[in-house]
């Protein structure tokens, strides 16, 4: 079975390894572009609100105005500046994406790597749980759950999305763990009677880091898209200003029927560009681990199938 490139030297020479990895990383144009895009949005989320006014309390006299020098993205039907809204919405949107993505990834690490390493009945059950969670469609579940819960502020949204979106990552991580657990260095650690938690944390986890990071970016995109969908259906608290909520307000005011494309365009584009930025980072990581990761893929699929 083929090896993942990074698996070659676990733990050893971390400093030098990191340096050369950094050099490789700087050579990948896709990775750089992705980092620039994501970095830009993170900066906007952190500092943007300092530069624009509070769009929910400052109303201009111009209603339904198109983009102009005064209002770059135009204004809403009640005179809010859409550019200010878009900037202010960045922080909650990214927060939901990052937090839900982080929690979902953490769950998938525990279930995927834990199950894959422990094996036996524990693995069978966790794999079953994962596959079941994977085939049950999540959005209708989230919609119905959100309605039943009633309160759809920041925290409930994060948890509902996280708890329904970990399964795909867990499956990937389990496949990877199954292939890593019988590598020489893991066997050596086992022969040395190292405790299980240490083998998982020190031998397995660092070697699966690239995959974990890549799964995290997927989860983050998924969370942002999911929140936008919920918001668009009116299932998010209206006090929260996210890109999805802006789209909901636009739809509610029938902005499209009156041809106000500027109300729709920015938020959707932000979601798409930010998601593409994360995907480019993924591409870049993939390139770094090239070509062996690519060679590895069919065997991963095989490992999953036999489960």
């Amino acid at each position, binding site marked *: 079975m083929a090896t993942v490139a990074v698996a070659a030297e676990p733990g050893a020479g971390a400093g030098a390894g990191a340096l050369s990895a950094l050099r490789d990383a700087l050579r990948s144009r896709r990775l750089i572009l992705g980092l620039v895009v994501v970095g830009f949005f993170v900066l906007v989320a952190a500092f943007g609100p300092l530069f624009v006014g509070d769009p929910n309390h400052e109303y201009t006299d111009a209603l339904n105005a198109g983009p102009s020098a005064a209002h770059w993205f135009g204004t809403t039907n009640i005179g809010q500046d859409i550019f200010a809204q878009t900037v202010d919405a960045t922080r909650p949107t990214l927060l939901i994406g990052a937090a839900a993505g982080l929690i979902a990834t953490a769950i998938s690490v525990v279930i995927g790597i834990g199950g894959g390493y422990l094996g036996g009945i524990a693995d069978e059950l966790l794999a079953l749980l994962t596959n079941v969670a994977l085939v049950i469609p999540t959005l209708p579940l989230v919609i119905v759950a959100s309605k039943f819960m009633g309160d759809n502020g920041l925290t409930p949204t994060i948890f509902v999305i996280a708890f329904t979106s970990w399964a795909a990552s867990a499956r990937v991580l389990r496949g990877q763990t199954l292939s890593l657990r019988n590598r020489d260095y893991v066997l050596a650690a086992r022969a040395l009677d190292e405790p299980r938690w240490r083998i998982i944390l020190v031998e397995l986890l660092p070697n699966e880091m690239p995959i974990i990071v890549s799964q995290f970016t997927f989860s983050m995109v998924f969370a942002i898209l999911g929140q936008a969908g919920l918001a668009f259906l009116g299932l998010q608290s209206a006090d929260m200003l996210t890109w999805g909520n802006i789209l909901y307000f636009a739809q509610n005011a029938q902005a499209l029927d009156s041809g106000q494309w500027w109300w729709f365009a920015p938020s959707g584009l932000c979601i798409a560009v930010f998601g593409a930025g994360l995907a480019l980072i993924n591409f870049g990581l993939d390139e770094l681990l090239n070509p062996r990761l690519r060679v590895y893929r069919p065997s991963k*699929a095989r490992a999953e199938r036999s489960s």
Partner: protein
Amino acid sequence: MRLRYIGRKLGFYLVAAWVAITVNFFLPRLIPGDPVSIIISRQTQSGTVPAGEAAALRKLLGLGSGSLLSQYGQYLDQLVHLNFGLSITEFPTPVADVVRPAIAWTLVLVGLATFISFCLGVGLGALAGWKRGTRIDALVPSTTLLTAMPYFWLALLLVYLFSQKWNLLPAQQGYDPSLDVGWNSAFIGSAIQHSILPAMTLVIASVGGWLLGMRNMTVATLSEDFVVAAEARGLSPVRVLTRYAARNAVLPSVSGFAVSIGFVVSGQIVMEQVFNYPGLGSLLFQAVSNEDYPLMQALFLTISFAVLGSNLLVDLLYGLIDPRTREA
């Protein structure tokens, strides 16, 4: 061996179906406060509540009575008889009658769009992988932009362009409401015309995923020994690609169907709202905004079972196209 494979798969989907049914049972019971008292408190604000309303609502919501276990028993019994209770929005129509007409609309649209998207994505992906490093391949990362777009936003964009600006295609509903619903050419033509924009949305938004997966798998497969051997035998490149590389490279795309169909169905639900399409998504939205809990539960089950069913079908087909799985 064949039978064992099918048996295992059926067993898995039975478990999955049971989980979906049980989740559906617990949904109204897990929430803080109970739906009956929530609805009643809302009704008290708008007028007097007739005596016995609480009991009537419990029956309406299919909540049953007695211990949790006996409620579960009653719930299963109702399910077996396809009795989902009465819809609150279209009282007193049974929920099943409300859901039934919507199924076909969504099923046909999602089915066709997924098929087109799969063929297109796999074809282009194989091409990009085959021409690795060329200009065609360099276009692949740009598809991530499509994949990261919210389905409903893409739908809005298409409506704006094709309906508002150019006035080419209808943007609302599944057919011209002035026509009679039935198997006549006017109605079918209208339905097709109305389905173009929704189908386009689904295809554009989902094709990137298929394309990327297929491209990577093709690149990986092309370096396998059997492909090298086929090339060494002097077979034509097209034959090597189609009969040797692509055939094997497509397998993970097929086995990854579960994840993709989940995405498409989720996108579809929100997207139908944009088009006012008469499918399950619009119905779910209606149910949610009208607090029609029995309808919501029935829809969740219907959508879950549709996804489970299509996955089962793909899994069984998978056993046919990849003999290795049958032996495992």
